């Protein structure tokens, strides 16, 4: 397109725009109103799809962390499983570091060795 053609096109475009301006202005001035029924349908969808609190907390975490945490939690049975696992781990550490004498005092291995839970079992066998 030559410079002259471009100039003509621009003039034509301006003329078109001027001719249409009142129509566009009328359309813009129109105040679109949505019917109450449509608004209710939209807000019903919004309420139905609004994230629940647990989902919102999950959404706030980074995706990778959330996935790992969720998978581990499922693996060990949720919060109860996690609490049990933590208790067992602490007990294991305590057993590892505690004074053996103290463990004996709580019925540790050496004390258990001396306990005969069924002292009279041999007599019962002999009696038939």
């Amino acid at each position, binding site marked *: 397109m030559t410079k002259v053609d471009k100039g003509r096109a621009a003039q034509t475009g301006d003329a078109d725009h001027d001719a249409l301006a009142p129509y566009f202005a009328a359309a813009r001035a*129109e105040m679109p109103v949505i019917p109450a029924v*449509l608004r209710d349908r939209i807000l019903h969808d919004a309420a139905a799809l609004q994230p629940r609190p647990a989902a919102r907390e999950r959404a706030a975490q980074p995706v990778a962390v959330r996935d790992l945490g969720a998978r581990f939690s499922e693996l060990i049975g949720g919060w109860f499983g996690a609490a049990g696992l933590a208790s067992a781990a602490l007990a294991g550490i305590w057993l590892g570091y505690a004074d053996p004498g103290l463990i004996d005092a709580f019925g540790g291995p050496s004390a258990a060795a001396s306990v005969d839970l069924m002292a009279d079992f041999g007599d019962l066998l002999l009696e038939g």
Partner: protein
Amino acid sequence: MVMPYDANADATDDALLRLYALGDGQAARELTARLAPRLVSFARRMLGDVAEAEDVVQETMLRLWKIAPQWQPGSARVSTWAFRVASNLCTDRLRRRRGQPLDAVPEPADDRPDADQGLIEADRLAALDAALARLPQRQRQAVVLRHIEGLSNPEIAETMGIGVEAVESLTARAKRALAAMLAGRKEELGYDEG
């Protein structure tokens, strides 16, 4: 007690969407009040059918609610995103119509007061809508978004998935065609004084 509707009136669309994702029901009302009327107006002009336009707007808003928890603030304007979804839904419906017999396609709708009531403004709108309905779909989409919904050319380019120059070309051709179609009605519509 009636909750004020403008509690979030100063918030950006981004912020409202985030508030919605955090459980604020009022944010959904505010977003609906901001977006839905413009979307209905746009979809009605694209489809020429009020009921279909309303279905498109409901679907568009539904997709917005679904995407809210993953919405990245600043990634796009919510209104541009919504117009893009509505545009695509309108395009799908228009494509489906092409396979239908002509009688099944609704006439362009005009639910405003007509000329018989002596309202020249309504007559102008009806004339504009009738002329818009005769434009090729892409030209109609571009010119409505630009000159009625007030989107910028880059926003329209994003909405339509084309370049800015293509948008300019579409709107120029659309305006030329509209001007030709409406030229014969100037006197009738009260534009003969100038």
